[in-house]
């Protein structure tokens, strides 16, 4: 097939990137329907034409899970769509999700050879198109799985847990994923809004995991209902993966934070997305109503909170960020969409105080913020210019709802309830192979690294799965067969000993 492909050069390929059909900015800003509508077959074939199929592709190295990008794009071009899906699914079981939420400009597309001269190939859009097609056609990559008798427990059903579960199930393990919420999906469900990642897509990807034999147990708070130690000692798990996320939202510690009009982006998004408060009173969970909403921070969570606020009916939605647009950690597409939808950005601005309303009957309500202008100074430890306050530039800013999206800290529950070693900041300490201080327990995602991206969490889940397989001796002898030192390796105390 490869020989049939004509030799492409940067001059012969379509020069312009195929635009993504999107809902009109004005109309979509009040709707939770998905903004980016997705490529058609014609779009996908045209964009696939733009890939040079580099023999030494940089994009694969740019992908945290190492998808064989030229191969899947080549198969799209050859109209072997199922083959394209199988190529992606070999390393990424969740293409419909990753195609939507990965920061491709910093990953595969950031290093694309075409991107040196023209706009890079729209790898993310093509991945999403393949993922959506797979969901529509009911394709799943459920291979024949030879059960190996090992039982794996996974704590947290977010992206890290889902990726680890998929790989362990494919390796033949019996996998159970525990989730504290009443629905699986983690941050994909409670955090990322429907207009960016529809719940139906997440549910379909979870259904694919079920087809691999993965069991999901919701309403289960591991650490409190049972501990990691109990999972290994009483419940018969041979290895456990912890992917509980960062969670615990940061506050700034400025006056006025306990006012009733102040909340975390996590709370706003969870109420709106998972609990469906946007459909109050049909759903019972209430939402704080804001006419002038100010969101502090400029990461992806901030973009979600800004755009959700707009859709909930706010008249004005403001983004307050202490650095400039260039330093904004948000995915380029989200920032662009937020600007299109009419979010007002206040770069180089930092809040000093949240002002309450002293008027009778309004106690506890927010009337605004006192802010200060910032200027960029010398680079700090993160390599970004350090924002420094401009003396005498304080000003007041009217707002009735203030949303914090300035990052998160480690969720403390696993640390409180196990002997697992933590680092100074409370995150789980893990080595390069994502093994923790407890034999048989692996950890990955935000609970190890601090807040990062969905695909990085998935990458960590897959890496932990590889380490787990090595720890369990998979790829070699199956338990019940060969005995090592005369001990059946299915005895988990022995397998734990082996890693110790």
């Amino acid at each position, binding site marked *: 097939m490869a020989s049939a492909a004509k030799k492409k050069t940067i001059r012969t390929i379509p020069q312009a990137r195929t635009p993504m059909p999107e809902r009109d900015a004005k109309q979509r800003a009040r709707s939770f329907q998905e903004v980016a509508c997705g490529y058609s077959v014609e779009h996908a074939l045209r964009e696939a034409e733009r890939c040079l199929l580099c023999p030494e592709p940089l994009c694969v190295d740019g992908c945290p899970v190492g998808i064989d990008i030229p191969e899947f794009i080549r198969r799209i071009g050859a109209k072997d769509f199922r083959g394209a899906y199988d190529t992606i699914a070999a390393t990424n079981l969740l293409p419909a999700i990753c195609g939507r939420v990965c920061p491709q400009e910093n990953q595969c597309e950031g290093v694309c050879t075409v991107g040196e001269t023209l706009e890079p190939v729209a790898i993310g859009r093509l991945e999403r198109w393949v993922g959506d097609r797979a969901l529509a056609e009911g394709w799943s990559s459920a291979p024949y799985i030879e059960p190996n008798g090992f039982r794996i427990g996974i704590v947290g059903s977010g992206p890290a847990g889902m990726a680890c579960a998929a790989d362990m199930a494919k390796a033949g393990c019996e996998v159970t994923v525990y989730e504290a919420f009443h629905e699986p999906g983690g941050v994909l469900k409670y955090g990322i809004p429907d207009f960016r990642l529809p719940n139906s897509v997440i549910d379909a990807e979870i259904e694919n995991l079920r087809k691999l034999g993965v069991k999901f147990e919701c309403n289960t708070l591991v650490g409190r209902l049972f501990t990691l130690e109990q999972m290994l000692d009483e419940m018969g798990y041979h290895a456990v993966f912890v992917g509980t996320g960062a969670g615990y939202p940061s506050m700034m510690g400025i006056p006025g934070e306990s006012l*009733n009009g102040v909340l975390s982006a996590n709370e706003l998004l969870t109420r709106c997305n998972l609990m469906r408060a946007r459909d*109050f009173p049909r759903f*019972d*969970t209430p939402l704080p109503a804001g006419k002038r909403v100010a969101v502090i921070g400029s990461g992806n969570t901030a973009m979600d909170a800004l755009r959700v606020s707009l859709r909930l009916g706010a008249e004005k939605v403001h983004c307050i960020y202490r650095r400039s647009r260039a330093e904004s950690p948000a995915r380029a597409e989200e920032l662009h969409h937020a600007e299109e939808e009419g979010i007002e950005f206040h770069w180089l601005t930092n809040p000093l105080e949240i002002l309450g309303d002293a008027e009778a009957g309004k106690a506890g309500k927010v009337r605004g913020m006192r802010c200060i202008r910032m200027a960029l100074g010398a680079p700090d430890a993160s390599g970004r210019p350090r924002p420094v306050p401009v003396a005498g530039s304080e000003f007041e800013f009217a707002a009735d709802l203030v949303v914090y999206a300035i990052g998160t800290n480690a969720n*403390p529950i696993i640390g409180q309830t196990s002997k697992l070693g933590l680092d100074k900041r409370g995150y789980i300490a893990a080595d390069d192979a994502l093994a923790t201080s407890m034999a048989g327990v692996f950890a990955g995602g935000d609970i190890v690294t601090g807040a990062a991206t969905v695909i990085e969490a998935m990458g960590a889940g897959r890496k932990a799965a590889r380490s787990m397989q090595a720890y369990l001796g998979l790829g070699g002898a199956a338990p019940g067969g060969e005995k090592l030192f005369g001990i059946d390796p299915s005895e988990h105390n022995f397998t734990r000993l082996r890693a110790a």
Partner: protein
Amino acid sequence: MPSTPAVYEIVAREDFSDATFLLEIRHPRMARAARPGQFVIVMEHPEGERIPLTLADFDPGRGTITLVIQAVGKTTREMQQNCRVGGALHALVGPMGMPSVIGGAKKVACVGGGLGVAPMFPQARACKQAGAYVVGIVGFRSRSLVFWEDKFRSACDELIVCTNDGSAGMKGFVTDGVRVALERHPDLGELIAIGPPVMMKACAEATRARKVKTMVSVNPIMVDGTGMCGGCRVKVGDKVKFACVDGPDFDGHQVDFDDLMARLARFAAQEKSALERWSASCRMSQPPAEEPLELPDPFEEVRGG
């Protein structure tokens, strides 16, 4: 180890008054894991909200947990109407929060008022099991609303029942009972208070001068109960704590109760409209239900604690 049930079956229900009712729910694993002071989050139906409720009892032998609920808002009234023996809850997660630290003092007063009466029972039982002399103080509006008196007597060495009208026990609020206990027991080592914030605040004030260690169980608004949303943040001394993972028990002399009460009113308008809309829809579908003459204290809102 018992498994997590696929359905959260209601195995018993008891109505203590026209507003207060008990649900016993099968969950063998939780019955085994639960400790005094912990709470659960419940969803009655898929469109419902998640509400935190402090555990009123747990029995590993029976494999059940017990909740005592006051029907004051839309969700809790709906539960009062819909939860029947043989039925099930949509979601039940727990136990959540740090267990109470039991066993520090030789003589302990356990105070329960309003919604906090029932959750005081596991604390009193645990204190007694730890060898403490336990003074129980529980408050009700009147004699007809008194429940679990035998249960409390079994867990306490001394029980002070307070009623607003004096129809049972002593006349007065639980804080009056606290004053009596403090006079009777100058050697009181610790006081544990569970109930509406105004009550816990009054208890903390009563013990402050005598420097009696006072632990309270706060009941702020929550969504997830796992430290993720930050809605339940409370001011404790000069720190901000999340009740769901750092609490729900805190030093009563350090908690900013005024802040707690203000934050409990965050969704007052939405809660009122939801209740009115629901009550109206109930009236349309059935003969008018008799409204309780005296509405419970708004701070007895069923949010756990």
